[in-house]
C-alpha cells in the first residue's frame, strides 16, 4: 500500500493533476453547474468552456516558458510585454496608423506576420543577452519587461487602436459555424506542433542536456548557446501568438493591459507542472495542465469577488509555496524532521 502510494506520488504529473482536481472540486462545490454545457446560437457555452478558452494565451506562453526554464534555468519575465508589443504591431499595421478603423488597411496576414516577427525579434534580443552576453535571464528580460510596454505605447502613440472588423475577432472569439472558440484550437495546435518539433528532432534532448549541464553538453558537441538563444526566440514567437489572441479578443491594442501579470501566471504554470525552475528536465504536458489549473484558479477567485488587481497576491503565495516545496534545503530539512520522528513512533 505504502509503496503504491509512493509510486503514485512519484509520477511526474502527480502535482499538476492533483492541483487541477482540487481546483475543479472547489468549483463544483461552489457552483454545481460548473460542468454543464449549453448550446446558444450554435456555439457551446459553459463555465468549463470559458476556462479552457481564456487559458489559451497562458497555455501558449507556458510552452515557451517551459523551454526557456529548461534550457537556461532562468525565466523570461518579458512575455507579457512582448504580447503587448505584438498586439500593438498587428493593430498598427492593420489600421494603417489610425485610431479606429472599420476595414483593414493591410491584409490580415500582413498584420499577423509583422506582429510575430516583432515578437520573435524581442525574444531574439533576450536570447542574445542571455546566450551570447551571459547575462542572468531575469535582468536581461527585465529590460523588455519595462521597456516593452513603452515601445507598445510608442507604436500605438499612447492610444487604444480599435480594429472594428469581424474577421479580426475570429482568433480570440468564434469563427462562424464552429461551436468552440478558435483560441482553443490555436493552443492545441501550438502544443502539438511544439511536441512534434521536440520529439521528432533531437531538440528536446539537447534542451534538457543544456539545462542539466551547459558545459558538459558543450563539450560533447551541442551548441549550447544556440540552443538557449533558440528557446528565447521561440518564447518570443509564442508570446507573439498569445498577443495576437489577446488583441483579437478585445479587437484593439491596449498597450497597458494586454498580457498584464501574465509573466507570473506563465512561471507559475511551469512550476505547477512539476518542472524544476533551476532548469534541466522538462515536461510540457505538465505545464499545459498547470496553465489550465491557473486559469481555473483565476476564474474561481473572480467568482469569489476578488478583483483582477488583487489576484496576484494569491498567486504569489502559491508560487512561494511551490518553490519552497521544490527547494533542496526544505526537502533535506523535512527528511531530517521525519527521521527524527520515526524512532519515537517505533
Amino acid at each position, binding site marked *: 500500500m505504502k509503496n503504491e502510494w509512493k509510486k503514485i506520488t512519484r509520477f511526474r504529473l502527480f502535482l499538476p493533476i492533483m492541483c487541477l482536481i482540487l481546483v475543479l472540486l472547489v468549483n463544483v462545490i461552489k457552483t454545481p453547474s460548473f460542468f454543464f454545457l449549453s448550446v446558444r446560437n450554435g456555439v457551446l457555452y459553459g463555465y468549463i468552456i470559458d476556462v479552457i478558452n481564456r487559458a489559451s494565451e497562458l497555455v501558449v506562453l507556458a510552452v515557451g516558458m517551459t523551454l526557456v526554464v529548461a534550457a537556461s534555468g532562468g525565466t523570461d519575465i518579458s512575455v507579457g510585454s512582448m504580447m503587448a508589443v505584438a498586439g500593438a504591431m498587428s493593430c498598427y499595421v492593420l489600421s494603417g496608423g489610425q485610431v479606429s478603423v472599420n476595414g483593414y488597411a493591410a491584409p490580415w496576414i500582413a498584420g499577423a506576420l509583422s506582429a510575430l516577427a516583432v515578437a520573435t525579434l524581442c525574444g531574439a534580443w533576450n536570447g542574445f543577452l542571455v546566450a551570447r552576453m551571459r547575462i542572468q535571464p531575469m535582468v536581461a528580460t527585465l529590460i523588455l*519587461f*519595462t521597456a516593452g510596454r513603452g515601445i507598445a505605447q510608442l507604436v500605438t502613440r499612447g492610444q487604444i487602436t480599435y480594429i472594428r472588423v469581424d474577421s479580426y475577432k475570429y482568433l480570440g472569439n468564434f469563427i462562424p459555424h464552429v461551436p468552440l472558440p478558435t483560441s482553443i484550437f490555436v493552443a492545441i495546435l501550438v502544443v502539438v506542433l511544439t511536441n512534434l518539433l521536440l520529439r521528432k528532432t533531437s531538440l528536446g534532448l539537447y534542451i534538457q542536456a543544456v539545462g542539466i549541464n551547459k558545459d558538459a553538453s558543450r563539450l560533447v558537441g551541442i551548441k549550447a548557446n544556440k540552443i538557449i538563444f533558440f528557446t528565447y526566440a521561440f518564447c518570443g514567437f509564442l508570446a507573439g501568438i498569445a498577443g495576437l489572441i489577446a488583441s483579437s479578443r478585445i479587437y484593439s491594442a491596449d498597450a497597458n493591459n494586454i498580457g498584464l501579470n501574465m509573466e507570473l501566471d506563465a512561471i507559475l504554470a511551469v512550476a505547477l507542472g512539476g518542472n524544476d525552475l533551476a532548469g534541466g528536465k522538462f515536461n510540457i504536458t505538465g505545464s499545459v495542465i498547470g496553465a489550465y489549473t491557473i486559469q481555473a484558479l483565476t476564474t474561481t477567485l473572480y467568482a469569489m469577488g476578488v478583483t483582477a488587481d488583487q489576484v496576484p497576491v494569491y498567486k504569489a503565495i502559491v508560487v512561494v509555496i511551490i518553490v519552497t516545496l521544490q527547494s533542496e534545503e526544505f526537502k533535506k530539512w523535512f527528511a531530517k524532521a521525519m527521521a527524527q520522528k520515526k524512532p519515537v513512533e517505533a
Partner: protein
Amino acid sequence: MKKKNAFNETTFLLKITISLFVVMYALGMVVFREKGFIHFQTFLNLFISNASLIVIAAGMTLVMLTGGIDISVGSCVALYCMMLAYMMERQCVDAVSAVAIVLATGLGFGFVQGFLVSYLRIQPFIVTLAGMFFARGMTAIISVDMITIMNKRFLGWAQDKLFLPFGGYLNRKGVLVRPFIYPTVIIAFITLVLIAILLRYTKFGRKIYAIGGSEQSSLLMGLNVRRTRLYAYVLDGFLAALGGVLFCLNTCSGFVEQARGYEMEAIAAAVIGGTLLTGGVGNVFGSLFGVLIKGTIETFITFQGTLSSWWTKITIAALLAFFIILQSILGNRKPRTGENQ
C-alpha cells in the same frame, strides 16, 4: 591580483558613468539654456525628485553585492505609499506611528524574502518576483481608489523647504531666489553615507563583499554566509520602506499603479554605477551617479515638453542594456574566478 582586476573594471565603469553624467548635464545646460536648466535649483531638483530612488538604489546595491537582486522594490513602494495614505486618512493613525509601522513592515518583508533566499536557497529572482506581485496585489486589496494625503503633520514634513545660503540668483523682478531642498534629500544623503560606512568599515559590510565575490571561499573562511545574506535582504527591505516613505513625501498620495517600473530604475542605477550583476564589486556612490543620470534624462524629457514620459523608461532600459553588455564584455575579457551566483 584578480581582485585588483575586478576593482579596475569597476572604477573604469564608474569613470564612464561620471563622465556620461557630466557630459549630459553640460549638454542640457547648452540645449535648454533659455528654460532655466542652468540654475542651481535644477541640479537640486535632481535630488529632490529622486531622493527615494537614492535610498532604494542603495538597498539594491547591497543585495546585488551579495550576488542577488530584488525586483519587488517598485511594488513595495506602491504598497508603502498606500499603507501610509490609508492609515493616515482612513484610520486616523498619526503620522509618526504610520511611518514607524511602514518601516517595520519593510523589515518584515525583507526578512521573509531574505529567509527564502538564504536559508531555503530559492533563486532571488523567483522570490522577489513573487514579492513584487504580492505587494502590488496587497496595494489593491487595501484600496483600489487613489487616496490623497491631507494629514497636516505629514504635509508639513513634505513641504518644509530648507533654503540654502548660497547659489541664489536674481529673477527678472530683481528678487533674490534662493535654492532650496526638502528634508527628504537630507534623509537620503544620511542613509547613503551610513550605508557607505557600513560597507567600507564594518565586518558586516566586508562579509557582503566576500560572499558576493565567492560564496565558496567565504564558507571555507568560516563566514556565516546565510546569516549575512539574510541581513542584507532585511536591510534592503528596510531601505525599500524608507524609500517608500520618501516617495510618498514627494507624491503625497497612494494608488495601485504608483512606481511601476521603479525596480528597473533602481537596478539600472546600481548597474550604471558600476555594481556587477555577479556580485562582489560596486559601491553606493556609483549608484548615486546612476540615479543622477536617470534624473537628468527625466529632466531632459520634461524640459523638452513634447516627448511622452515613456521615453524615460525606454532610455533607461537602453542605458541598462548598454551597461550590462559593457560589463559582460569586460567580464569575459578577464575571466574572474568564483563567478557563482
